[in-house]
């Protein structure tokens, strides 16, 4: 997985490179929007981490231009970095086509988790295989594998599991999970979700992942720390 970091501050850029490389990504870095134009012309990236406070062309302007290009690069997911946490910046950024937004200073761990989530979501629509920890989901065959082998899932369990994997490491509400399976049966209540989650937990034992309950909010699929 290849990431382009567009950040002018050397200290921040160096930390981003170190953190993302440690996490297993291939990372390139440019320090201006102009150089980013050159980079995306010749290379393919799975994600771009874009600082808004760039010298010269601002990050927001560059993002607006990127989304109007004709090549496949215009669909590359973009994670915005900004030192301003004003709602205006955020609304602007998300309206202009940013996929996520993180405010400086940030914890590397979180930035990496969000990068993974973005790549997973856009990647899943392109390829059809999603991985969380040791768990691999093959959407075309509707199969879920752990290191120990195939995990059998009912259609509803599959829908929930797919949603959780595409949103791994983020808290997902019961409502969202209900929507994910509502195609099957409209009469399901929130309690049904609890039932499916507890079944999934049973099936995922020893698979290196866990479904955490965030009381009153929802669930989160996490890799268990080895």
């Amino acid at each position, binding site marked *: 997985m290849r990431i382009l970091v567009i950040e002018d501050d050397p200290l921040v850029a160096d930390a981003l490179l170190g953190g993302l490389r440690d996490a297993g990504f291939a990372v390139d870095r440019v320090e201006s929007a102009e150089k980013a134009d050159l980079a995306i012309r010749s290379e393919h990236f799975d994600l771009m981490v874009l600082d808004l406070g760039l010298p010269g062309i601002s990050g927001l302007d560059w993002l607006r231009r990127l989304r109007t290009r004709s090549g496949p690069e215009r669909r590359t997911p973009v994670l915005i970095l900004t030192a301003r946490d004003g709602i205006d910046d955020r609304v602007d950024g998300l309206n202009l086509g940013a996929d996520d937004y993180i405010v400086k200073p940030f914890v590397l761990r979180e930035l990496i988790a969000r990068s993974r989530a973005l790549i997973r979501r856009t990647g899943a629509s392109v390829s059809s295989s999603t991985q969380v920890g040791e768990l691999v989901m093959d959407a075309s065959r509707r199969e879920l594998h752990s290191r120990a082998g195939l995990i059998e899932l009912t259609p509803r369990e599959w829908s929930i599991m797919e949603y959780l994997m595409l949103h791994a490491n983020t*808290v997902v509400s019961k409502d969202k999970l209900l929507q994910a399976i509502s195609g099957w049966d409209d009469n399901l209540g929130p309690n049904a979700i609890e039932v499916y989650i507890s079944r999934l937990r049973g099936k995922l034992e020893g698979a290196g992942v866990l479904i955490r309950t965030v*009381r009153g909010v929802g669930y989160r699929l996490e890799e268990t720390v080895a």
Partner: protein
Amino acid sequence: MKPPSIRTRLQLWLLPSLVLILGAFSVFDFHRAIEPVEAAYDAALANTAFAVSARLRAEKGTVALDLDDQTVALLRTDLIDRIFFRVISPSNETLAGDIGLKGPENIVGATFFDAVFQGKPVRGIAYPVATPIGISIVLVAETTVKRDKARRDMVASRLVQDLAVVFFAVLVVWFSVRGVLRPLEQLASQVQARSPSDLKPLPENGSPIEVLPLIDALNRLFGRIGSTQDGQRRFIENAAHQLRTPLAGLQGQVELAVREASSLGAPAGGLADRLARIEQATSRVTRLANQLLTLSRSDRPTHDTAGERQLELAELVADSVAIQIDRAIDREQDLGAETQAVSIRAIEWELREVLSNLIDNAIRYTPRGGQITVRCGPDEGGAFIEVEDSGPGIPATERDRVFERFYRAPTAPAGGSGLGLSIVQEIASLYEARVEIGDASRGTGTVVRVTFPEAVRRACPSPVADT
């Protein structure tokens, strides 16, 4: 000491001088009015004296008075006053009339005089008459009953009239002073009714020319204060923004260093520990920069509602819990939410700051293994947000002080800035929301509840959500 008052001063000057002037004029007026009356009465006296003098005759070297009783009776006739007379010969004998009646010492021509006769004040005339053997004197006098009455009537009618004039003059002064000062009072109440952060210029139209310089000066002052405040706000914002980029670098570098040190298997107490401490310090500085920025940004005028939107509290609560869940997990705390659907009109980042500071405090103050619950829902037409923890609780004596900036309770664990609750309070005040600290429903612990008034909640009656 009471400050000097323009109104009192105006009234102090105007009222006594008006009364004095009017008083002086009415005395003068009285005399002018009474004079002709007195003159008429005097003329009547003079006529009587003249009539008596016509009866004097010179006779063989003496003077005789030809006056019968009938004439005397006629002479003495008056409806109101008693009339006295006496005729004195040149040899100083009384020819007729009241013997005790005395005229003035020096008589030059017809002379009017005031005297007392038979115990009563009288007004009289001494009329000298030349006879062949010398000067005879005719004295005619009358009691002053009708004169007194005339004077009394005059005084009474004058007094009523003058008092009425004084009364109306005072009234006019009173109202005109009030009227003149009204624009000033209106200006004062206009300025007083403002919120401290309202620096809009005062309207000039309709104000009198004399008040315009004051309004102008106030408006210029407002302008200066406003631009100073804007400058300060911009400075703090810029400073905080400038801090954030290097902090992001520092944060990232420290994180990487901690990871490298632990992968190298550095011994406990050595480099790894120091790096962990630097990481903690970095996140503390980061948090402080964020909080200062939040304080400077929340320092906005309450009427500035640009950026307000209808916000679902339950969504914000769920989001805020999700953002902080990792910190709670690190401390083995059970952080969760109990939400009821309610929406209020507010600026999103401000509500996020309220939630993030309340949850952050709860995580900080609740021991490992504790429970923290974030709630929201409708409240008597308004809406509430509350965070309950199972921490040690805040003693009642501390509850007011914890809202002060930088105040930290004596029992507070290290690492806090003392800004969290003052940020909550400050943002709450923008929405006229109440912030209350109470005891947790069971065991020890604290509930901090923010109650938004009805005005902030625009009807959104949705059923209780069970998430």
